[in-house]
Structure formats: C-alpha cells, structure tokens
C-alpha cells in the first residue's frame, strides 16, 4: 500500500481508473481489486457502483457477502462508493422528488451493507434531497459527498447553495468531494490523441486549447469557441467534442479549495497523465499545500481518466506515478515544518 504517515491525507484508487482494463478478458471485480492490492495502489478503495457491481442497485445478500469478502481478502480499505441519481431515467420527464429520494436511499443502504463509509453523488443531488437523506445517512453511518468536478467551481450557484447548506447544518454526514479536474493548469495531451483518432483537425484542437487558456470563466467561453470553430469549418459533432474540453477540465485556482473546508468528506484525484514524474495539466504542489493547510486526513482516490481519450498508457502505472508524486509532496511538507 502507498501508506502515508499519520496526520497526512491517505491515498487510494478508484476502479473507475481501470475502465479499459475492466473490458479485457478475465478482468472481473475479483481480478481488478486483487491487482490494485498486489500493485500497492491502496490503501483506499473506491468504485462506481453502477460500473463495478452487477445487479446494482439491488444486490442480493449473496452478492453483498461476496463483494465484502473480496475487499476484506484484498486488505484494502473501502473509502467511498460512487452512486448516481439518474434523474433522466425515463424519456420526457425527470424523476419526482419522492422517486429521486428512493433512488439514492436504496443506494445509500447498499453502500452501508458493503461497508463503505461514504458515497459520492453528483451535483444533481441538490440541497432538498440531501436534507431529506441526512437522517438516513446518520442512521447508516455513511457520509454523503457531492463531487465538485469540472466545469463546476466553488462560485457556481449550485455549489454556493451547497456551501450554504453545509455551513447551516454543520453536520459531518454531508459535504463536498472536490475533484482535481476542477483546478487544471493545462488541457492534457491525451485529448490530442482522441481528436486525431476522431479526425478532428489539429488546428481545431489548438483553437479549443487556446480559448480554454484565456482568462475569464469557462462557462462564458462556449459561444466564442462555437463561432471560431465554425470559421475553421468544424462540424457540429466536432464542435461538441471541442466543448468537452471545457466541461472536463476546469480552471479554478487551487487555492480556492480552502473554501470547500471544513466540509470535505473525500477527495477525487482526477488526472490524465504523469510523465517522468511530472503532470503538465495539474498543479499538485498547490493542491497538496491546501490539503495540508486544512489538515485533511481523509482519502484521495486516484482517478485516472485519460482512458476516455487514449489507451496509450497503463492505468496501473499511471496511478503508481501519481501515488509516488503525492506521497513525496505530503512527506516533504512534513519535513519542511
């Protein structure tokens, strides 16, 4: 395991990082958990319930026993279970408030049965449903964290509303799961691989990267990107792919992570590639500094997502590289005090 010293953030892996590995023959849940443990990519173990657990959200007792057994045998520590509120489950309508509550509540109970101390939900779970879920979270002893992923920032109205809720309720059972993707310093090179494979001209990719890097809020740049991409002859589908750059990669200053505290229940270490010990797209020292200043001792799940763009790198090797980088940073921060 990549153990960090007491008083430091703890490292771990989400199986989401292994999305491509999961599709290879023989790589069932047992094999993936076993390989994470064998490669010392714990101690924390996170997974996306709908990705990793066949039959979710209605696991039978035998399946619950089996999954718990796999985790126990591995020696890993369950850190967080990512669940979803599928508000758009049915065509032409959104789930009602009662349906939405039940949809998450059954998953919260499932997370408790599997031994996870926290669940991750998305921003679609707003203050009303979180307030309603709070008594159940408390009863089950499972924290609910709302992931703050690009393009969201601490200042986005739905995030500000959550901050107000968490401050007002001041409960340990509800909070944020900030994600490194919210605070990137460059668009990762893996994007170029995917665009090349999809036949998107390099000048279009370069345009999107340029607009992304310009000052100003990302949300205000979609129109400019559309206009300038159309001038270069982009098709609507290509423009859609270019916009993904804006929605997957945020530009919030890492220092703003301080504003998520003290209501942070878990952290997602989203990343797209560490090469020679460096990550061109994420400023790890800046984020690590905030986590140390805030005395965060919870888990950071390494969440490798370049698999959405490219199969060029081994996810296992990438997580190893990120763990080494983070461990060095945290331990150096202790040495320098």
């Amino acid at each position, binding site marked *: 395991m990549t153990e960090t010293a007491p008083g430091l953030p703890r490292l771990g892996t989400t199986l989401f990082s292994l999305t491509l590995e999961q599709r290879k023959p023989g790589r069932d849940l047992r094999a993936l958990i076993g390989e994470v443990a064998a490669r010392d990519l714990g101690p924390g173990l996170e997974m996306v319930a709908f990705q990793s657990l066949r039959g979710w959200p209605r696991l039978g007792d035998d399946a619950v026993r089996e999954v718990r057994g796999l985790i126990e045998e591995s020696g890993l520590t369950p850190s967080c279970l990512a669940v979803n509120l599928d508000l758009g489950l049915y065509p032409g309508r959104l789930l009602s408030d009662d349906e939405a509550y039940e949809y998450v509540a059954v998953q919260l109970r499932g997370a408790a049965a599997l031994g996870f101390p926290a669940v991750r939900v998305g921003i679609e779970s707003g203050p009303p449903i979180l307030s309603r879920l709070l008594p159940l979270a408390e009863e089950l002893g499972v924290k609910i964290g709302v992931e703050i992923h690009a393009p969201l920032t601490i200042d986005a109205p739905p995030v500000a509303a959550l901050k107000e809720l968490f401050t007002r309720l001041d409960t340990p059972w509800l909070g944020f799961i900030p994600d490194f993707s919210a605070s990137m310093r460059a668009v990762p090179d893996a994007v170029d691989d*995917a665009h090349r494979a999809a036949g998107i001209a390099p000048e279009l990719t370069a345009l999107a990267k340029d607009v992304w890097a310009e000052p100003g809020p990302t949300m205000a740049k979609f129109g400019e990107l559309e206009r300038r991409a159309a001038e270069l002859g982009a098709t609507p589908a290509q423009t859609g792919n270019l916009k993904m750059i804006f929605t997957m990669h945020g530009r919030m200053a890492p220092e703003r992570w301080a504003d998520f505290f003290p209501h942070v229940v878990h952290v997602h270490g989203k990343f797209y590639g560490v090469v020679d010990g460096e990550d061109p797209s994420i400023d790890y020292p800046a984020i690590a500094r905030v986590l140390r200043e805030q005395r965060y001792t919870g888990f950071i799940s390494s969440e490798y997502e370049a698999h959405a763009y490219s199969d060029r790198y081994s996810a296992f090797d990438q997580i190893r590289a990120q763990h080494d980088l983070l461990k060095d940073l945290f331990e150096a921060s202790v040495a320098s005090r």
Partner: protein
Amino acid sequence: MGPLDDQVVRPDSLTATPDGLDIAVYSHWYRALPLPSLVKVDLTVDGTPVDPASLAATVNGKRYVFGELAGRGDEFWFTTDPIVLHVPVATAPGREHRVQLVLGLSIPYILTGPDRVPLVAPSSTDKKLTVGSPS
C-alpha cells in the same frame, strides 16, 4: 469518441439464427445504464437501414421488442455485458456483412441546458464482419 467506441461491435459480434442476424452490442459508456438509455439505434446492414421498430433486443436473459426498452427503467445494461440485437436480415454462418451503427446513449445523470435534458453520448461503428454460428 474514445477507446471504448471501437469495442461496441466486435469481431465475433455477428451470429446467424433461424430468425436472422444477431448483433452483440457493447456499451461505450463506463457504467451500467438503464434500458431506456438506448434512445438511438441507427443500424444499417449492407447499406440498408434497419427500422428500429423491427428490432428485438435481449439483455439480462430477457427479450424485448425495441419499443419496450423505454419503459424498463428497472433493468440495467451492465458494463461488460452485450445487448444482443435481433435483426430481421437473412444471413448464414460465414457470410460477411457491413455493419454501420450509430448508438446514442442517453446519460440519465448528466442533464444539459435550461430544460435539463439528458446528454446523448454517441458512438459510431462501420465494420465489415463475418457471421459466426450460434454457440
């Protein structure tokens, strides 16, 4: 867009059955999706478009006519399982077909725009494949 798109229809996806052509289709999305997420199945076999209403699909061991999928929010298409499309196209083991498929998956937790409409994530396949025998 992305490495999973190439796995939507695989080299061994085609099977001849007494009813026609079966095509095993895998998801290009990372997590299991409810069956109503299959909002777009634009399938063309050997240059001839296939009316989705003529399709049936087997998932989790149950067979549905295509129009039934929209109501089955309680059933999920698991990450590593295929949905088998039953296509009314005559075939036989060893025959080659050109399969073009634009698969649009409605992502029920990613809501877009002021009307909060689910994102539709597409994949596009264009492959010439040889039909196998039922196993």
